[in-house]
């Protein structure tokens, strides 16, 4: 009659169970950790949530690069808080993925051995302070559009983690826009720096929504399972529609000569996306892939003695308490 919350995975496949699972999904009943679920649903979620977590953790690196060189104490405090949030987002997501029965260490190992992917956007370098602004404005802006629908996704722990994350992301986007605004309205050199950052981050941000619907392998099944509520292209269009006017307000130019408002579709038309670049970066050949992964591997290895010492200390004290009692 009872079970544990941490090892309640029900194995096995059954048509009847699958039918009842689908029927509950249709009624928008959330799936919770110990509920029966198709193995493929579980696998898809573990892949998606853990890669999302990896993206948050690796995403700390490009911005962390500027913490020591932020232009004022206030900017430094803001950036520290933001990077700390990214660590938090990674941890919310790892624990959501763990409820599906995959241990944390297994996920970390998948990242460190290159088996698991993370968002390709973090394989681009942050060359100037304006890049910190562009990341907050564009990358976090794109992330918000991706993530808001996930607060309504079918898996309870993932949806709940996304609610917390989305609340915090809006601070990230606004502080980024604020950095861009100050630079865009600063000296000609600062304005040029903001434009240069937009030039370099625009296309990678547009690519963050993933391959076009015509070439996206996971779209259809994930939509059936209510893990994904909008297609890649729908989300991408939303991002472009809301970001182009913001660039105009900043007085910056989007680096796309084919960008036009389309009265008929009520969306912007954009130029061709260089998907070759996207796939090259995903496969490991972006400007910073090796450096990012090596930084994570070093952090994990250098921290091993700390993890072991803390565990040994805890075990020793637990043993002492037992023998005293």
């Amino acid at each position, binding site marked *: *009659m009872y079970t544990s919350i941490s090892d309640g995975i029900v194995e096995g496949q059954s048509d009847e169970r699958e039918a009842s699972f689908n029927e509950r999904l249709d009624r928008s009943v959330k799936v919770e950790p110990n509920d029966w679920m198709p193995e493929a649903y579980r696998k898809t979620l573990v892949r998606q949530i853990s890669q999302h977590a990896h993206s948050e953790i690796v995403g700390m690196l490009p911005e962390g690069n500027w913490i020591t060189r932020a232009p004022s104490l206030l900017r430094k405090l803001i950036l520290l808080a933001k990077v700390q949030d990214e660590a938090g987002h990674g941890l919310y997501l790892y624990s959501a993925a763990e409820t599906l029965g995959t241990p944390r260490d297994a996920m970390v190992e998948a990242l460190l051995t290159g088996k698991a992917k993370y968002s390709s956007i973090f394989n681009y370098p942050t060359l100037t302070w304006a890049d910190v602004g562009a990341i907050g404005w564009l990358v976090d802006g794109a992330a918000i559009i991706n993530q808001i629908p996930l607060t309504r996704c079918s898996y309870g722990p993932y949806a709940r*983690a996304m609610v917390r994350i989305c609340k915090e992301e809006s601070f990230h986007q606004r502080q980024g826009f604020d950095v861009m605004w100050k630079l865009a309205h600063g000296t000609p050199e600062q304005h040029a720096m903001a434009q240069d950052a937009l030039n370099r981050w625009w296309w990678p941000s547009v690519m963050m929504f993933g391959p076009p619907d015509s070439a996206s392998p996971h779209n259809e099944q994930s939509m059936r399972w209510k893990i994904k509520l909008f297609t890649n292209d729908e989300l991408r269009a939303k991002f472009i529609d809301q970001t182009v006017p913001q660039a105009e307000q900043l007085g910056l130019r989007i680096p796309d000569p084919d960008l036009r408002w389309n009265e008929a579709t009520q969306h912007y038309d954009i130029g061709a996306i260089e998907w070759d670049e996207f796939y090259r970066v995903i496969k490991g050949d972006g400007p910073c892939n090796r450096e990012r992964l090596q930084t994570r591997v070093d952090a994990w290895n250098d921290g091993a003695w700390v993890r072991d010492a803390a565990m040994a200390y805890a075990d020793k004290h637990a043993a002492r308490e037992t023998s005293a009692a």
Partner: protein
Amino acid sequence: MNKEWPLWEIFVRSENGLAHKHVGSLHAADAEMAVQNARDLYTRRNEGVSIWVVKSSDVVATDPSQAEALFEPSEDKAYRHATFYKVPEGVKHL
């Protein structure tokens, strides 16, 4: 050695007068570290005034496959709810 830190479930009281509510989980070597990590992870923006941590392996739960047997019987007992009873017209304070 390479032993994973145990998992803890975290409960936060958002303000006095409200119950602690489950907010998520985290890894920590012991209870003290779990409380410290929970403070950093789950209360960065005034989310709480008190934290409980419980080892995940110590939480006992109902089995979802028994949910029907456990919880459905209460569905056909409408008479347990005040709304089951028709209040005659004109009767007040009921």
